[in-house]
């Protein structure tokens, strides 16, 4: 598979947060993603559904510039990947399965480290900790936190640099309702940035999304506006 890059950026692509065209990625023989195309306007949310192994995480990692696409064109926030990866990196926030926090360091030390990496002022750390109500535990090592609190800390890390695009891999998985409410200003719909949201909670995912991408076996099952997608379409992906 030879990568085909879309060299020109039209005004439409500039306006879109994410534009994928025929994107593919393989691991040796095994094709993880094949021919995925979508376009996401700024500020909008696309929910990605699919069974385990359907390629959701691969897609997210390609958007995060962590994986190179093997086919097709990927445009994120106006930059064509992988060439413009360095331009795009600091403007994207990834919340993956791993919290990406060092367990032996405190929450504050972790956030301070990431702040220095991204060139973010330290005052923002205190701000975020207050929003997610983690300030009292901020000086405890991460391995002493419960999963829900660690998730909140991870969300702080992912949004520390005020990204314009949020890539969220099951963000609410470990959170109790209180926690989910607390992080809404950072990663919820009203937070502002465009979002790519992977969720296994079909109803909640549909409720939060403007667009829906269904993946089955690495291929695109459908990409449509959320209003036109019914529950049974999504449930069909898991059959």
């Amino acid at each position, binding site marked *: 598979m030879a990568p085909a890059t879309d060299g020109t950026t039209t005004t439409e692509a500039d306006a879109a947060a994410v534009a994928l065209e025929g994107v593919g990625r393989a691991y040796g023989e095994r094709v993880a993603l094949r021919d995925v195309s979508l376009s996401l306007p700024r500020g909008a949310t696309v929910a990605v559904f699919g069974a385990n192994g359907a390629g959701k995480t691969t897609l997210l990692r390609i958007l995060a510039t962590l994986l190179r696409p093997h086919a097709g064109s990927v445009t994120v926030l106006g930059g064509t990947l992988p060439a413009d990866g360095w331009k795009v990196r600091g403007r994207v926030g990834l919340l993956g399965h791993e919290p990406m926090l*060092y367990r032996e360091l405190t929450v504050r030390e972790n956030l301070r480290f990431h702040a220095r*990496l991204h060139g973010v002022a330290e005052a923002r750390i205190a701000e975020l900790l207050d929003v997610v109500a983690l300030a009292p535990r901020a000086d405890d090592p991460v391995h002493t936190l419960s999963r829900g609190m660690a998730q909140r800390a991870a969300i702080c890390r992912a949004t520390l640099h005020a990204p314009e695009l949020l890539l969220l891999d099951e963000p609410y998985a470990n959170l109790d309702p209180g926690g989910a409410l607390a992080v809404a200003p950072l990663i919820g719909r009203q937070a502002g940035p465009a979002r790519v949201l992977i969720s296994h909670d079909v109803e909640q995912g549909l409720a939060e999304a403007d667009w829906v991408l269904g993946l089955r076996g690495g291929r695109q099952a459908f990409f449509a506006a959320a209003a036109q997608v019914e529950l049974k379409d999504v449930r069909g992906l898991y059959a």
Partner: protein
Amino acid sequence: MRRVVGALVRKDLRLELRTRESVPAMLMFSVSTFVLFHFGLDRDRLAGDLAAGVLWVTLLFAAVLGMNRLFVAEREQGGFDGFLLAPVDRTALFVAKAAVLLAFLVVVEAAAVPAFAVLLLGPSAADALPDLLAVLLLADLGIAVVGTLVGALAVQTRARDLIVPLIALPLLLPVVIAAAQASSPLFAEAGAGALPGRWLVVLALYDGVFALLAFGVFDFLLED
């Protein structure tokens, strides 16, 4: 770049202080190995080539312990991703990790070399100290550069603890050769002799070549 390297180094030093995984192990290993050599060679005092050889082989194996651990936190706790997502030059990770490994080696040697002098060394090393420091520094630079490269190479494989010594030891052989040849006159029976400068040049050359190589290839180890 400096800010990023500083942040990475500070983070690693803080982690090491908290977990105390690498440095104590490297130090204890060195001292135990000196004891082993005493019994294995059945000697009370060493001098000249033998002393240099024992010292350098021990330091090398202790360094391998450090190399094994160098990238483990990144691998297991998502540190690679966290770094790769930042809008920074990826070589900063190499520089930071090499600096950290160098720091570990310096700290370990600050205790292990005196331990060696007390336990095994016959002639007094006090006169030779500045020369010995020069050799130690140059050799440590080479070990840090190669060790970081091999550590990064091995951390993503399944047999990490085996691959590191298998690859690093042959690669570091010129360092051992040069360091041992340079330091054996310093441990001479009759009193410390002159340091053969030629070997310092070899060490410096080795350090330079591998540093350049590392700058060239390290990025490829991080991308996907």
